[in-house]
């Protein structure tokens, strides 16, 4: 049983006009075995939350803490957070020329586990993970994300999720830009991951569509840098019917 606790998180970014506060006191606790969906309009700070948890250098934490099983991960470097059991599936994964997917995955797996994976089973595992994401095995010899379509990049992220199998996964708009077939493949991957029972998911999304495939335990509405409301599935249905207006107006 693991717990990811976000407490009173305040985050700023530097702009031309000085520091601008994006997150204004986020409180959220995710236990292993739970799927939390965070929904919010553009610009509400959803991605900032994801990247701040992962430790992107662009974001300055001005207050609060993020505890993974009691340890404040904000004091850890980006790679240390990943090794502690955190994974971020990015909305726009970068292309890394000349670094093959195979080399990248093996290096990451070795770093996470603290030892190199056994060669024979590892190649099988990688091929199986790619195949489940309907990615051709030839992807392992291609450069990381280079020339991948938007959907292929997202499926590559979820293949990594399955291979690295972290304690907690933050999925930043993994559903955006996916057609219905890709959405189903990606959702199946996330469901396999959470079906292990002892893993936690923070699913950040703009649309309710993915919630037809991934059943959330909690739905949170995120507006103006903080959680505006928490509920169950029915909250997503309300948002689907009425949009974010009610919450954005309340936040002003």
């Amino acid at each position: 049983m693991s717990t990811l606790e976000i407490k009173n998180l305040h985050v700023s970014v530097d702009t031309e006009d000085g520091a601008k506060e994006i997150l204004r006191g986020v409180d959220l606790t995710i236990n292993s075995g739970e799927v939390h969906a965070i929904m919010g309009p553009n610009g509400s700070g959803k991605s900032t939350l994801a990247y701040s948890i992962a430790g992107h250098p662009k974001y300055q934490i001005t207050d609060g803490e993020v505890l993974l099983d009691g340890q404040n991960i904000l004091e850890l470097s980006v790679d240390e957070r990943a090794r502690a059991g955190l994974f971020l599936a990015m909305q726009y994964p970068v292309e890394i020329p000349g670094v093959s997917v195979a080399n990248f995955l093996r290096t990451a797996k070795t770093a996470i586990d603290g030892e190199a994976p056994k060669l024979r089973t590892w190649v099988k595992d990688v091929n199986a993970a790619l195949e489940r994401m309907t990615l051709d095995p030839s992807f392992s010899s291609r450069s990381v994300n280079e020339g991948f379509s938007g959907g292929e990049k997202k499926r590559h992220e979820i293949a990594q999720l399955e291979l690295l199998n972290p304690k907690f996964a933050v999925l930043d708009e993994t559903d955006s830009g996916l057609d219905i077939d890709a959405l189903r493949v990606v959702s199946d991957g996330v469901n396999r991951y959470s079906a292990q029972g002892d893993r936690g998911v923070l699913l950040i999304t703009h649309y309710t569509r993915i919630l037809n495939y991934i059943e959330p335990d909690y739905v949170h509405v995120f507006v103006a840098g903080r959680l505006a409301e928490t509920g169950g599935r029915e909250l997503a249905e309300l948002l689907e019917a009425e949009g974010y207006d009610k919450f954005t107006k309340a936040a002003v």
Partner: protein
Amino acid sequence: MTTATVEGTGNQMAAALELDHVQSHLHPEPSYDVADHPKPTGLEEIWRFTPLKRLRGLLDGEPSDACLEWKDELPAGATLTTITTDEAKAIGGIAPLDRLSALAVENSGGATLLTIDGELDSPARIVLSGSSTEQTVWGHVVVKVAPFSKATITFDHVGSATYASTVTYVVGDGAQLDVVNLADWNDDTVHAVQNGISVGRDAAVRFFEFTLGGDLVRSSTNVDYRGPGGSVDLLGIYFADAGQHLEHRQFVDHTAPRTRSNVEYKGALQGQDAHTVWIGNVLIRKIAEGIDTFEQNDNLVLTDGARADSVPNLEIETGDIAGAGHASTTGRFDDEHLFYLQSRGIDPTEAKRLVVHGFFNDIIRRIGVEDLQERLMSAIEDELATVVGNPAAVTA
């Protein structure tokens, strides 16, 4: 990183007014006559980046009989012979575009001719080694490739030397030639070379340069086309350490229609006064309709105190081209690359190592000569060990 991309279709009006004889604004006329190439002051366009004082008097042109030691491994279809300077000139490659190249021809007292005829089973390998920087060495090499031949030639440069050379390639119609030039000199070597590549009709040339060693290396690679349909890839890697000056200049002269050129050079720099220069010049003549050209130079600056100069130039004299562009980037590690790798648990040192490997592997994997690829990767690994292996020394 900063990126500059220029796409152009030329200035039709200027092209319409051009005379048949179009001359590059950036280069002198080619000539074998040393008198046509006066001693530079350092202000000339083709010399302004080169530290002339570090050329060890090469520009004075003192004759010398000293030679590099040659070792070769030649498959059937490749032969080495010695010819006179007049015979070498008569083969008709590109004449010298600068003084050092003209001096190398003048002072070599003959040339070494490598003839390629037919499809070679394995690479023709030549190792040139120098044993001292004390003596000046002049070199003149001609590579003549018969029509429809297919070959890979590797030139491996090692040891210590003060060396100026002219290497001329005349590639017959329909031939496919790969040349791999490795400059793995000791750090006291001075080497100035002009590579001249004349591409036959429908011939395809890939010219690789890997420059890792030397106190000063100045490599000028000039290309022209002897018929339509020719294709050239100039692909380079350089890695400059403290105090090294590594300069690569290309001049692709599109002298025939529907020809293609692609130039990609990648460099890394580390240490105080590591200096690299990349000059990529392309001239598209009026006759050269329907050509396609792209040039790219990327520099990765690993530490403070290093300097990368990167200058792409396009001179366009026709309005009818398929594509012409260039791009140049110089920067430190891309934070987003490092963040992505670290977010998968990979520590910063390993992440940087992966990125640099990937940066160079992009070119190296295209060589297709396995032992050379491995040797280059391990040479780069050695270079990286001095800085990236030591995170405290990395300021990026």
